[in-house]
């Protein structure tokens, strides 16, 4: 089993989605994350085991390479796809409650703002680290965040903004969320955002990059 999990991790790390994927060349024609995950489940691995000991491991490795500028985003996206292929098999188990994710993360770009490249990267990284991610898209107002936060009372919320005129909307959203549930943790990011601003609007975390966010989520989860 250990060997199998290692193989899955390898597939995720190198973006080998399934048998049909041409990359990486040395795995051509072989099973990918898709097939191997099914096999692991069949052989009795639990969803948590696969998630923690294979998928997150693989994503972690590619994440490190990305941080060290040894791969570009497209490679990370391939890894994310391979992970998704695997997750497709695990999701029913998580949904039924038979297995548990590390936590839930709700993210969106705030009202008036359409920039989503950064937000999408954050989603991907958080998902790759074993969290369920609910991406509300762009131009998201306080109400939508509130509704989603009610659905997932333990979820951490992430707000992204790239405009100086929309970052100020973060304040309302944080207030609304905290008023409803003072325990809700709200993380903020995007190019114009600063630690100062985070303090000012009483958000719980500012991070200039996804890594800082993941560390924070892991701390909360543990």
């Amino acid at each position: 089993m250990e060997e199998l999990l290692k193989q899955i991790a390898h597939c995720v790390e190198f973006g080998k989605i399934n048998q049909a994927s041409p990359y990486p060349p040395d795995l051509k024609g072989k099973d990918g994350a898709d097939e191997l995950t099914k096999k692991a489940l069949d052989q009795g691995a639990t969803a948590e085991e696969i998630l923690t000991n294979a998928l997150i491991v693989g994503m972690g490795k590619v994440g490190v390479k990305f941080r060290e500028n040894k791969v570009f985003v497209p490679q990370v996206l391939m890894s994310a796809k391979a992970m998704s292929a695997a997750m497709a098999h695990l999701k029913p188990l998580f949904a039924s409650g038979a297995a548990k994710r590390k936590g839930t993360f709700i993210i969106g770009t705030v009202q008036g703002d359409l920039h989503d490249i950064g937000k999408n990267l954050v989603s991907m990284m958080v998902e790759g680290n074993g969290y369920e991610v609910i991406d509300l898209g762009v131009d998201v107002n306080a109400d939508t965040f509130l509704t989603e936060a009610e659905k997932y009372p333990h979820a951490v919320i992430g707000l992204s903004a790239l405009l100086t005129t929309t970052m100020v909307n973060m304040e309302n959203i944080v207030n609304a969320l905290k008023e409803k549930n003072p325990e809700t943790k709200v993380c903020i990011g995007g190019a114009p955002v600063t630690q100062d601003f985070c303090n000012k609007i009483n958000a719980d975390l500012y991070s200039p990059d996804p890594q800082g966010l993941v560390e924070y989520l892991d701390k909360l989860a543990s």
Partner: protein
Amino acid sequence: MKFKKLAIESMEDLCFGTAPSPVTTRRGLIIGGGKVYPELNFTLPPMHINDDTFPDIKNQYREIVRAALQRGLELYSEGIVFEFETLIEMTKNPSYGVDIVKVMNEECENYFVKHGLKSEIRLTPNDLREFERPPKQRTSGYLDTMLELFEEGAKAGGDLLSIESTGGKEIFDDALMHCNIREIAFALNVLGVRDMQMLWEKIAGIADKQGKIAGGDTACGFGNTAMVLAEKKYIPKIFAAVVRIMTVSRTIVAIEQGAKGPDKDCGYEGAFLKAITGTPISMEGKTAACAHLSPLGNIAGACADLWSNESVQNIKLLADMAPTVYFEQLTYDTRLFNQAVSSGKSDILKLQKYMVESDMYLDPQAFILAPENVIKISAEIVKGSNHLDAAIKGALKGISLIEDAVSEGRLKSSEMEDAYIPVLKDELSSIPVSEDEFIAEMDSIIDKTKYIKEEYGL
């Protein structure tokens, strides 16, 4: 492609300050007529935009413009362009945008009448259509709102009309993150081109009707997004360089539809447009570092007619408000350009050489902007049978120039980067030259929920 040959055929003629078809503005600035002028851009500090804050906002725009004109006077400025790029609320409520143009224009007029200082306003409404996903490029009510701002803003004193249109972005963004050059070609050179054909006909029409100047477009959201991601090392620089080249046959559509220039800053395809069409252009380099870092600080100025800072918030620096500070920096940059101009052609080429050679071998995105390469690539672009073909021809030429320079050790690169050269070549070469064929191919691949074919007349 309307343009079949180059307006500037030799690199010696692709210089800053002079364009084959200069543009004369209402207050008498001649852009591309010999001198380089600063184009100052600015935006609000973090704040809300609503009726309560609007008086303050109007005042901020007035003060920014007044302070720059005042400093311009002190520095013996010979001309200034102010770009007013609207923030969303100012387009959604065109009366906001129009009011701001008015106060800006009042200041411009005041300094013109009292002191003879010539200045002009470039009005750039932002493209609201991307607020709907999938966007309704032709049927959206937002389109009317944008056009209203163009029309009323022009009447209020916006003399140069521009936009950063976003047709195809709904496909482009994802494609960029995946480095999928095929989908990028579809986004830029099929969808983007078609969208601009529709949009720029209207903008040029408004300009004509109001006796104003249709400036130009820029693929900022495409080319500069690629550059910003490459600076973050998210995608290869070589890839970003190729995307830049592919923006040319998109942005050129504005001119095909009647735009006269100056082409807008915030992108770097201007250099190619100038070579192909002869219109003057606005460029931004080191003095736009306030808005984004780049590998193009000096070389971007090689053939600029306006020199811009892209954008800076209205916040206080130690010396003064940031827009005034950046205006001063731009002014000194243009003084240097114009000093060389007044010393004659060989001095223009000298200064240009320093600017070009100090950057060109350090990054492929800079490399393709060297006048000699701009000319070579442009010459391929104009051979294209259509906009798509033009983009591919230009891109392939760019790649081959980069490849040669890398292999000869002239251009800095890395293994990680170089790996993309053969991949890009293969991918680009396999794109059908026939637009119909390509459209059919992409139709079967691209997720239908992401875009609406009909909105591009497909």
